[in-house]
């Protein structure tokens, strides 16, 4: 049975990408980069648009069936980063290929979402079994997550873990297994947070610790709130933000939401919230009306992929969560994230046609 393409979802995506392009121009000016940021972002958006179109044409079922085969190359890509890190040291999250850069964790996000959906569709009721169902998928996901956390990129690890956990929850894993997984993940998280030293700089300041280091860490967060709060209801006007002028860290990526808040005010941020809520509702709607479980799981995973990132990014910008370094889907500057999210949206749009 064939349904109509979800025009609302498409409109939401186009609107968010358009906003992102405008903000790339605004923040680029703020950082004294002229229009280079804008031009690069436009190119990436075009690339993402093509990706979306191809994904739409290929269809979500076909693409998700490739996920299993892509797992190993993806893990190799992630391992490659660790190899580079071992040689050069520091934090390595990107491959740089001339003018392009590739963020493997973003690719891993899509591959894992599709793989879990594929796995759950194949296993069906078997997912309720610990040894045959839960353990294998947890191991596969755990390896990739571990590799990402070693980059180190804890924000992406947490976000991706949440997405995959949510999928497993919907997939019907027993609640006691879910509970064990969540507890284990939580304990691991706490250990990792303090092993990698994020605790001192990111978590404790939020809890009110007050020393030189904590104050410096809190500064970023406060600057984001100053931007949002300073914007008020209507904002200072597009392009007229102050905070993007080196007060905010990463105004074009991690804190683009705050810049929107300052320039377009509460109406702007509410618009973004509304857009993502709408994206979530349409995505869930597409899942619910899917004609078979594979499409259902793919739709749920792709929706969660966008929703979780958006929630976490905005929670950081509003000072609810410690800094994670996650982009705001469709809006933040950053090629891989934009392309991956648009490819995902292309697949969702394809799914919207296949309603039962």
């Amino acid at each position: 049975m064939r349904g109509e393409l979800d025009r609302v979802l498409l409109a939401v995506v186009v609107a968010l990408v358009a906003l992102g392009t405008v903000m790339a121009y605004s923040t680029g000016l703020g950082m004294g980069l002229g229009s280079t940021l804008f031009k690069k972002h436009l190119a990436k958006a075009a690339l993402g648009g093509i990706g979306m179109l191809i994904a739409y044409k290929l269809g979500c079922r076909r693409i998700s069936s490739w996920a299993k085969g892509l797992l190993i190359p993806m893990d190799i890509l992630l391992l490659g980063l660790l190899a580079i890190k071992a040689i050069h040291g520091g934090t390595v999250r990107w491959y740089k290929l001339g003018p392009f850069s590739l963020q493997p964790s973003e690719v891993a996000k899509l591959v894992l979402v599709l793989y879990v959906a594929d796995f759950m569709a194949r296993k069906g009721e078997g997912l309720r079994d610990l040894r045959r169902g839960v353990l294998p998928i947890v191991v596969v996901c755990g390896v990739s997550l571990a590799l990402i956390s070693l980059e180190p990129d804890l924000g992406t690890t947490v976000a991706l873990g949440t997405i995959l956990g949510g999928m497993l929850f919907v997939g019907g894993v027993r609640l006691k297994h879910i509970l064990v997984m969540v507890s284990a993940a939580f304990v691991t998280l706490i250990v990792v947070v303090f092993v990698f030293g994020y605790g001192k700089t990111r978590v404790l300041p939020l809890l009110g610790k007050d020393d030189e280091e904590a104050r410096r860490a809190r500064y970023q967060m406060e600057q984001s709130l100053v931007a949002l709060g300073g914007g008020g209801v209507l904002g200072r006007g597009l392009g007229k933000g102050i905070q993007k002028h080196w007060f905010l860290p990463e105004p074009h990526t991690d804190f683009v939401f705050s810049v929107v808040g300052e320039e377009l005010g509460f109406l702007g941020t509410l618009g973004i919230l509304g857009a993502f809520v709408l994206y979530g509702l349409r995505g869930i709607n597409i899942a619910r009306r899917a004609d078979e479980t594979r499409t259902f799981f793919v739709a749920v995973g792709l929706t969660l992929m966008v929703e979780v990132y958006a929630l976490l990014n905005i929670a950081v910008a509003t000072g609810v969560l410690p800094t994670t370094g996650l982009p705001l889907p469709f809006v933040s500057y950053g090629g891989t994230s934009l392309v991956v999210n648009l490819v995902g949206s292309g697949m969702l749009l394809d799914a919207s046609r296949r309603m039962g």
Partner: protein
Amino acid sequence: MIPKVHRRRLFLLTLLLGACWTGLALRLVQVQLGDNEAYASRLERQSQLRLKLPARRGDILDRKGHILALDLEGFSYYIFAPAGDPYRTARLFSEVGDVPYYVLLSKLRRKGFVWLARGLGEREAIAVRRWKLSGVREYKEFRRAYPMGDVACQVLGYTDVDGKGIEGAELEFDEYLRGRSGWALRRRNGRGGWIPEDLPMRPPRDGADIVLTLDAEVQSILEEELKAAVERHRARSGMGIVMVPRTGEVLAMANVPKFDPKHPEDYHMWTRKNRTITDIYEPGSTFKIVTAAAALEEKVISPEDSLFCEEGAFLVAGGRFRDAHPYGWLTFREVVELSSNIGTIKIAEKLGKGVLYRYARAFGFGAETGIDLPGEVKGILRPPSAWSGRSLASIAVGQEVSVTAIQMACAYAAVANGGMLMRPQIVLEVKGVGGKVLKRMKPEPLRRVISEETARKLVEFLEGVVERGTGREARIPGARVAGKTGTAQRPLEGGGGYAPGEFVASFVGFLPAEDPELLCLVVIDTPKEGGHYGGQVAAPVFRRVVERVLSLPGHPLSKRIQEMLKRTPEMVRVPDVTGLPPDEALQVLSGIGVKGEVQGTGGVVMRQYPEPGCEVPEGGRVVLTLGGGGISGGKLPDLKGLTLREAMRRLKALGVGVRMYGSGRVVKQSPGAGVEVRGGTVCILEGRR
């Protein structure tokens, strides 16, 4: 169809997502709507900076409009330490600025704000910008400059590095000069740079200009002659005042040694003070004017009455008073002309304590003159109730009293001015932006001290002093000069007698006697060579100063004097001897019956006065100023096309300071050819290959 368990779980997940979004929306309401004002004000606070816009401090000018002090745009540099490479920063800035390397380095190693250099010129600023040192910020402010160097330095005073007046006229008129600084709000970014935006500002209001009564040329002449005299007599110091007796306007007020107003901190306080008003000295015989004036006014003795001068030694209340030369019978007139202490004491005894004291006060001794300069002192003149038995005698001859130079100049100006004491005037007017006169000072008569009749007689006496008496060295051919010498022993520091062999030699005089236009006081402290009498040491300085002032082109007095000089019979036209070696010039002059008088050092006559073509009486003097010793005179040659080395050699020979930029041959010079060379002139040369 999708199994029910999935749908149920998805529903739960949807609820969870909905809860999260609702939570974030509420958080946004709180931050953007609830705390909006607090965050907005913090945003403005952290991104706005209130910059001070410094006002340009007013100029200080002389009466002819020569600029004595002005504000130039300067560039200052600061840094918030720690930043950049402290070693490189300290090394480079210690080269362009005044702060030594190690001082700068130790400051840069600490935390906080550090001035790296202040008030640099345009060229240095270009160099600093070229270094591109990280963290270094530029701040444009004004720096004080004194284009005539140390001319009138003690009168002008100086400012601190923030442009606040600290001494002299800079302090006295600070309120007028400083103007009002403005401010501007600027938007800054998170890294200390600027975001262009139109924000409120208040422009600065520049300070007003002060026009002094000083004449820079007269001032330079006085300073040069005092310096020469101090060197000639190996004296401790010298000071002098040139005034217009009729108005009380001070044309020159000088103290040597001088200091560099750009670096006052390098000099002792004593050098920086304007000692003509802040320091006192025992006047000696110049103070006899009080006794003489009182005696004439009170008619206790007439000019031709005789007094016995005790053949040089006289006991008063156990104290012995002496005359420099023993005299027998002298008339009152001769007592003044020959400066007999004993004669003066005998006249004072006829007057009595009260009268003498009253006249001394009337002439302004023992009180500030009220000149508009800071730090003036009263001097010491005790009331008769505090006098001892010999005080009357001592005070009559200028001992047991201490005066300031300005008091003495004013007292004689009163005599020259027909008995009317004027308040000494140092400021002509205060001019606002665009030359608008804000305030004009007028000559201010204080009181009549003596009658015109008495004043006329006193002038006659004083003319006699120069004609026949102790002040013969002050004679100027063709002009009627009135004056009085003074030779006082220097009191020991801490009191209790006088320092053996230490004298203060002074001369105060004015001319022309029939209608005085110019008054000059010279005080030389502790001359050690070439005599110590006022008539020997100070009177020649008076003569040189007055002669040079009168020969200044365009001086209102010079025409009158020139005309007066022309009336005398045998006149000789002075040939041009500039450019000749001194012996040759002297030969030429003696060939036409004129005496040449050489001053300064150097191999060539740079300047002569009277100038070529002027007429002087036969037997008169022509003063030749030699070049090469840094003494003013001569004109800057055209240096264009010369190698920098050659140009520098020539300028050095003229005593002119040199600053060079570039290399190769001179393409530009400033000041240009033909500009008069003064003490402290600096010529800037630009070379190109």
